């Protein structure tokens, strides 16, 4: 029996796999040669798993600097005749869209699958765009898996379809498919993968296809439409679209909603009263299948159930009109258009649609829950203990003395927008901190602008924005929170790490050197654990036009993980209750989760297990009441001594 998290099981074996792991397994079973990504929840695990096994199966896996680059890497592999996959979160496709839309015209050679994972309910995202729309927009087929098993099957099928049609194919899992673990029966691995054979392609020059000049694009557009009709024919027989049941209630359901529908029908006890058309290919829709289903309900009505946008529903409404089918189509008039689908939502919709009642009293549960929730203290995620970002935010805010505009960005450090740090006035999309900062600097002049961006985000879309800021002379301080890793999405390496996806050493690209080369007026690198130094550098930066401050210290979660493995320890800080005045500066201005407040004794308390040894709280304490507890039981109050600085330097070079 295989261990959890392993995708290299034996054929036919049932493994407990997350949807994303099942997709990764599908990529290997399809003998893909290249996999690229820019990470993003809920898609990240696909490449995390693939990069881990890559050397064992001869796969080339890469963390690209953004989704557009990742897409292009995979596209080139396809044009070399290899099978390739690129994965990203839904909004990643916005970044890759420019190439995606053109490549939809140009087509593929080796099968190429674009996995974009949607995030209904926005568990970890800035919007809940439905990327099936992108598939329609680009005229690219899209497969919509209902569970991890189907995700595996669809992944393999998508490569085949891509090759049969010569088009990109999109696979669009949602958070609940990507992140649900299920018993998945796996198939066989191709010989190449079993023997770790690295596949190499061959680029046959073909400017008519690969050089998309306007005249050629005009010729290609009709081909795009032909491809989608060819795909539609093939998908009429795809194993992901089927009819079941023979009851008089007609329901068409797409993707994961099928699973919830089945549960709802079971709970309502009406499984035998319905006929279902299950759709796994929302675009292009298998119109013949749909029509023959609809014909059975002529004179009556059919309900279309899908998460988010009415993609399937609207295509069906067009079909009904075009073919003159006499059936009423319902959908978003009963099924919510926003947030994640649930069994409950379908139960409630069916109760209304069919005029019946379920035996769980949801209203009573809601009422009780509302009353209880109002009394519960919230627990939003916080920056980790010893997170280097915390010190940088503290210093930025302190230095600006209420006279700063903080344009923010996306990463763990987005939490700097919340209490108690509250040092982020805007978040829009990745890399937007510098662009918005430039705009702010040219739109108002009463406040200094601080653009706050992480290292991975800087390489993603900050580079060109920084060039723009220097070029257009925007007075601002760009603060790069360089924790040398893409922390938020699970610690993927980036150009500031010095390691590739498969953990091979590579060049460490120094963001400070980039800023210098771009002509920034002031550039400094500072250790995030040294608050006085941060304050000094930020004050100096204010005197310059475009200043770039790189605040560097590895992610504390990663650092402590590595240290634990090596059997190393870190210093422990404790509060001296005789010196603590209960002023709460450590909690209200800094806010490490390892510190809580003892109301009875009126002192701050540091949890020994949670203190990860940064000394930030000791540095911000106005009464020097926090000390390092030495192994011999002694107390060290001078936390900024040479020994500590040396230790931080050592941590800095640990990656």
């Amino acid at each position, binding site marked *: *029996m295989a*261990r*959890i998290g392993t995708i290299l099981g034996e054929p036919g074996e049932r493994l*407990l796999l*997350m949807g994303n792991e099942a997709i990764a397994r599908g990529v290997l079973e399809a003998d893909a040669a290249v996999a690229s990504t820019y990470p993003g929840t809920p898609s990240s695990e696909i490449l995390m798993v693939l990069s881990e096994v890559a050397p064992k199966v001869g796969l080339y896996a890469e963390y690209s600097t953004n989704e557009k680059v990742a897409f292009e890497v995979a596209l080139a592999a396809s044009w070399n005749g290899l099978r390739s996959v690129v994965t990203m979160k839904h909004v990643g496709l916005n970044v890759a869209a420019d190439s995606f839309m053109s490549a939809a015209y140009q087509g593929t050679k080796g099968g190429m699958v674009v996995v974009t994972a949607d995030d209904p309910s926005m*568990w*970890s995202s800035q919007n809940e765009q439905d990327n099936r729309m992108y598939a329609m927009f680009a005229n690219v087929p899209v497969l919509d898996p209902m*569970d991890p098993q189907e995700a595996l099957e669809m992944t393999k099928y998508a490569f085949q379809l891509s090759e049969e049609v010569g088009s990109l194919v999109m696979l669009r899992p949602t958070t*609940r498919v990507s*992140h*649900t*673990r*299920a*018993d998945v029966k796996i198939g066989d691995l191709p010989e190449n993968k079993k023997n770790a054979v690295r596949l190499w392609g061959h680029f046959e020059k073909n400017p008519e296809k690969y050089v998309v000049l306007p005249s050629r694009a005009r010729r290609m557009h009709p081909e795009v439409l032909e491809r989608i009709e060819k795909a539609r024919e093939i998908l009429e027989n795809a194993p992901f679209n089927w009819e079941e049941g023979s009851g008089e209630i007609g329901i068409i359901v797409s993707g*994961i909603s099928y*699973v*919830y529908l*089945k*549960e709802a029908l*079971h*709970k309502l006890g009406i499984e035998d009263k319905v006929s279902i058309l299950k759709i796994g290919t929302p675009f292009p829709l298998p119109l013949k299948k749909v029509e023959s289903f609809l014909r059975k309900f002529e004179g009556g009505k059919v309900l279309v159930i899908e998460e988010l946008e009415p993609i399937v529903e609207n295509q069906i409404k067009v079909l009904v009109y075009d073919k003159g089918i006499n059936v009423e189509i319902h959908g978003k008039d009963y099924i919510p258009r926003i947030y994640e689908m*649930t*069994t*409950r939502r379908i*139960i409630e919709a069916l109760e209304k649609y069919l005029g019946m009642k379920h035996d*769980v*009293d*949801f209203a009573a*549960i*809601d009422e*009780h*829950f509302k009353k*209880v*929730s109002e*009394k*519960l*203290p*919230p*627990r*939003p*995620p*916080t920056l*980790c203990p010893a997170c280097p970002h915390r010190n940088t935010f503290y210093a930025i805010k302190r230095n600006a003395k209420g006279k700063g505009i903080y344009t923010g960005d996306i990463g*763990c450090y*987005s*939490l700097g927008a919340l*209490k*108690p740090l509250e040092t982020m006035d805007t978040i829009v999309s990745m890399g937007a901190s510098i662009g918005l900062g430039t705009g702010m600097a040219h739109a108002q002049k009463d406040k200094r602008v601080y653009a706050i961006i992480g290292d991975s985000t800087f390489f993603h879309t900050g580079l060109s924005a920084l060039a723009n800021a220097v070029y257009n002379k925007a007075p601002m301080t760009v603060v790069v929170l360089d924790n040398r890793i893409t*922390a*938020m999405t699970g610690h993927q390496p980036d150009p500031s790490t010095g390691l590739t996806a498969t953990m091979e050493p590579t060049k460490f690209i120094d963001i400070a050197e980039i800023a210098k080369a771009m002509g920034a007026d002031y550039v400094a690198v500072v250790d995030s654990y040294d608050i006085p130094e941060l304050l000094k550098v930020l004050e100096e930066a204010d005197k310059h036009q475009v200043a770039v401050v790189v605040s560097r210290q590895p992610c504390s*979660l990663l650092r402590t993980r590595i240290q634990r493995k090596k059997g190393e320890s870190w210093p422990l800080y404790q509060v001296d209750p005789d010196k603590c005045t209960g002023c*709460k500066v450590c*909690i*209200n201005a800094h*806010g490490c*989760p390892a*510190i*809580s*407040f003892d109301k009875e004794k009126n002192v701050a308390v540091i949890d020994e*297990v949670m203190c990860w040894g940064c000394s930030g709280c000791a540095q911000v304490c106005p009464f020097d009441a926090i000390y390092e507890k030495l192994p011999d039981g002694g107390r060290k109050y001078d936390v900024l001594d040479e020994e500590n600085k040396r230790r931080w330097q050592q941590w800095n070079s640990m990656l």
Partner: protein
Amino acid sequence: MEFNVVISGVGGQGILTAEHLLAQTALRKGYKVRAGEIHGLAQRFGSVVAFVRFGETVYGGSVPDGMGDLILGFEPVETMRYINFVKDGGVAIVNTKKIPPVQVSMGLYEYPSWDEIKFWLSERNIKLIGIPAEDLALKAGSALAVNTVMVGAAIKLGLLPFEPEDIKDTIKEIFPAKLHDLNFKAFDLGYEAEPEIA
């Protein structure tokens, strides 16, 4: 027959491992399984909820409102935050160790009292079993074993179709060898635990 378990707590408490223990056991016993966790943004130190569902047939990865047989609450407030998933007359096994959120330290919120929590649960006829899981985990050898203690207490309840040996087999399967004894001990301590608050 289907079994619906809700697991909740604070990010970093090992919710995922408890989920794995139950899900992998169910898989080996031949059930169909769905499991998964829900959390927003960086899950670190925020509120987390996970589900394990198994049976002859299973559906989606999330337990619908009011249909959970039992909740393993790794922290009192985090138990109440997901009580909507538990059915009337269900069971709440709660680690009695309170972890006050920063908002409480800042003085913005009060941490609810045990009397309040007991009252809320009684309103929906949910049985409370409060055990000192963290103390027991420390007794077993590591605070990180809270999850195995909680699973031990859940098996003792007899609501899930597993014997202690089933879970121990899974421990052997998914933990590195050096952690086996610690987790066996944590499991036993959870299994034998007397409720401290009920």
